[in-house]
């Protein structure tokens, strides 16, 4: 999956949430999408997911325009919002089976079991999503996208209320995706965490792209660019 974003803009009424954002993300890229509250991160993720239409610009998935692509193209895009997008009155297993069918992915009961086992929900697979704790719902969200294997995965504050082992689970999932040639974009305020996983960082501020660089070591340009959004005297590594 090669993702290209050209001059993307989104306005809500008279308010521009996103202005002239361009990105070029080759396969295997794991992008940290950072910025202060209201910078336009979630708007960008929703545009990339096709949940909202852009006011201007275009999004190309492997060269084809997302807005003109058939519905089938959406099966290549995943949106992980921890604990959301799950039916409360379906069991953990039914949720996975339903979405696998909806995404036209043939998954055997054994595969569903295996994914539930990986996220530590095998014992609770027959419980309704409503009966799961918030942390477990986050795990179920991860299980969903592990099963559906989208080529482009968008994550909005993926750490949610995950505990230590949940964070490990998420991070190993994201690392695996990077090696498989999929594109991952995650918006989060856990800067140190997402930077340890990413191959590129992008900073949005007031709807504009103010920083876009491949990961370096050391990364002074990032430290300077992100420093202005941190409380006085604080570093993103702390």
């Amino acid at each position, binding site marked *: 999956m090669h993702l290209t974003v050209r001059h993307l803009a989104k306005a809500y009424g008279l308010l521009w949430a996103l202005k002239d954002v361009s990105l070029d993300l080759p396969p295997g890229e794991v992008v940290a999408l950072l910025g202060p509250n209201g910078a336009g991160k979630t708007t960008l993720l929703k545009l990339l*997911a*096709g*949940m909202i*239409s852009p006011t201007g610009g275009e999004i190309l998935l492997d060269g084809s325009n997302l807005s003109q692509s058939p*519905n*089938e*193209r*959406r*099966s290549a*895009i*995943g*949106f992980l*919002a921890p*604990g*959301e*997008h*799950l*039916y*409360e*009155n*379906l069991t953990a297993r*039914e949720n996975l089976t*339903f*979405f696998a*069918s*909806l*995404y*036209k992915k043939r998954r055997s009961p054994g595969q569903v079991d295996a994914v539930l086992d990986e996220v530590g929900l095998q014992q609770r697979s027959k419980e309704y*999503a409503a009966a799961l704790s918030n942390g477990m719902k986050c795990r179920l969200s991860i299980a969903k996208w592990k099963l559906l294997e989208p080529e482009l995965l968008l994550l909005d504050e993926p750490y949610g209320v995950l505990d230590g082992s949940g964070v490990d689970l998420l991070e190993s999932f994201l690392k695996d995706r990077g090696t498989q040639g999929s594109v991952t974009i995650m918006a989060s305020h856990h800067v140190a965490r997402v930077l340890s996983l990413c191959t590129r960082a992008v900073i949005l501020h007031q709807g504009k792209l103010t920083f876009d660089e491949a990961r370096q070591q050391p990364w002074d340009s990032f430290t300077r660019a992100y420093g202005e959004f941190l409380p006085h005297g604080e570093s993103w590594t702390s």
Partner: protein
Amino acid sequence: MDFLNQISLLLKKDLLLELRRRESLLLMFFFGTLLLFVFHFSFDLVPERVAEMAPGLLWLAFLFTGTLGLAQLFEGERGNHCLDALLLSPMDRGALFLAKTGFNFILMVLVEIVVIPLFWILFNLSSWDVVPYLFVITLLGTIGFCVLGTLLSAVTLKARARELLLPLVLFPLMIPVILATIRCMEAILRAGELGDAVPWLRLLVGFDVIFLTTGVLIFDRVIEG
């Protein structure tokens, strides 16, 4: 085939959720029968006035009961942003429209199966032989109600006080269906056949076909709007 599979998948999911929550159907049954009892105590339906009054009273019950169902139609999707999850998927929006229409239709038919005979029993009506014909006409009217109702339910999905707004928008647009259904039922109750109500039947079928097709074609814009 794939389109039908999607409809079947979404419909099964909605029926399973309803089976577990038992919110819409129980509410509709209760409200439908309650209305019949109110009518029973309010009106003296003598045999000479059956053709004149029964269709209107029955449709009043169906309209109010159906509106309750419509208000709950997307409730399963509202929690946890499940509607977003559906819209993110490669599912055809037309399939979602038909599945929701089908689900609402099934609920209403289940209510009608109880309400129509109960109406006949409560009002002590003897003309049981016309009930199957009335039921067929009611089904056509129900399709029109569900098709338009599902479309408008999606339109008002993000509106504040949607439970109040929905009937305000829906009822005026339902006038052709209500009129056509009532005229057809009236003709059957008077003469045992459609007779001069055939043009009303054509209007009813035409309404169903036009709005069903329109719904499938425009639902993506409606639901994403």
